[in-house]
């Protein structure tokens, strides 16, 4: 089916065709990358030179500017994957599984960074790198789920077959994540009444909020850029695999 013969192509249908998708989104990559870079530069400048130390936490508050965005991405990327999984199973959108596959390792990476920065924060604040606090613990479990999904993708030879199975697992995971969060919170309050995180969001002064927001958007756009590139790569990789199999059979038709 060529474009001319198709009577009307909505943006949805356009996105549904891998080739069209690549053609339509390729021009977005460079602007996104530049925007990301600008946001990072601004965010870092504010984080280090234009914001004061917190009156309670001192300079360690600066860790927050990388910690909170990565922790947010860790959760946001799972939501992205869950929506993509729905796209695979319900709408049969041919790009949904590409998006799902591209996102998984990035989710794992950002979650790992959240854990790392968190423990770098924890050492000066609590004196240990690791504490079995509810939020940290559920982030750790999220990391395990991500890595499991990565492993599951790699265990399949046939990516098309893998897609729906992984989608099923991702959705079951998505149902489960709130339950896990709830149970881990229940568990940690059972053992240590006071939570380590005091919700200080609204109380934060603007001088801290500004770099936080800048970094937050910088990381989010970084994810958007990388996701787009990784999806393009994945689409190409599938073509490569088809061609390689065909070549391995000596090109019989």
């Amino acid at each position, binding site marked *: 089916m060529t474009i001319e013969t198709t009577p009307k192509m909505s943006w949805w249908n356009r996105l549904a065709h891998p080739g069209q998708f690549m053609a339509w989104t390729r021009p977005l990559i460079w602007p996104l990358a530049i925007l990301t870079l600008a946001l990072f530069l601004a965010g870092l400048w504010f984080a280090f030179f234009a914001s004061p130390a917190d009156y309670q936490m001192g300079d360690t508050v600066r860790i927050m500017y990388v910690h909170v965005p990565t922790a947010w991405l860790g959760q946001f990327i799972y939501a992205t994957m869950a929506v993509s999984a729905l796209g695979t199973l319900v709408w049969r959108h041919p790009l949904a599984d590409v998006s799902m596959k591209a996102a998984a390792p990035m989710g794992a990476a950002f979650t790992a960074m959240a854990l790392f920065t968190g423990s770098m924060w924890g050492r000066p604040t609590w004196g240990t790198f690791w504490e079995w606090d509810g939020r940290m613990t559920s982030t750790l*479990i999220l990391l*395990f*789920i991500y*890595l*499991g999904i990565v*492993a*599951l993708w790699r*265990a*399949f*030879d046939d990516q098309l*077959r*893998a897609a*729906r*199975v992984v989608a*099923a*697992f991702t959705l*079951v*995971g998505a149902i*489960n994540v709130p*339950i*896990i969060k*709830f*149970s*881990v919170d*229940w*568990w940690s309050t*059972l*053992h240590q009444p006071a939570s380590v995180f005091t919700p200080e969001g609204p109380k934060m002064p603007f001088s801290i909020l500004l770099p936080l927001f800048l970094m937050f958007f910088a990381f989010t756009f970084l994810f958007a850029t990388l996701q787009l590139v990784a999806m393009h790569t994945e689409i190409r990789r599938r073509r490569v695999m088809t061609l390689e199999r065909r070549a391995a059979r000596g090109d019989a038709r």
Partner: protein
Amino acid sequence: MSGFRSVLRRELRLALAGGSDMLTLVLFFVIVGAIVPFAVGPDRQLLARIAPGIVWIAAFLSMLLGLDRLFRPDREDGTLTLYRLAELPLAAAIAAKVIAHWLTAALPLILASPFLAMILAMDEPTFWRTLASLALGTPALAAFGTFGAAVTAATRRGGLLAPILIAPLSVPVLIFGVGAISPLGGPDQAAAAMLFLAALSLMALALSPFASALAIGWGEE
């Protein structure tokens, strides 16, 4: 539903005829429990305090051990293909497998738990609560495990994959299982945990066969 009963009977027959699988599980369960005193030293009070947790961990790990046997042999010798073409719906066959898995991988552990309770110096009321929480919680583990095995059935190498997929998802079972025993949060907390455990088990049991059947249908061949 004679097909359902046949699948159940077949699974039980295979598990019992082999014999070793069940014995391995129970043995492993006991070994895990028995090794802890070596690690913590013979402090009876401490042991008694962590005993419910140890029993649950042991049960949790033992049930993970048996997951690979759930679908892989059926897949390799072609039986899974037969199931997919059978009159009996695939979900029903899988429901029978969940039940058989519970009967062969969880029930023996529950029966062996008095022995563990003894080694770990558990007092009697705690023991009874442990038994109750195991009985209520292990069905959820069996159901989750079946789903994990179904998701990995189509991959050429399973082995450890199903356990790592399932273990993080089953953390709530573990938490509430232990929470239902230990008197830390007070009796009403324990009762709430017990209820939650039961709810989790029911939900998992109800959904797992369908989800697993879908995963197998999508992944196979």
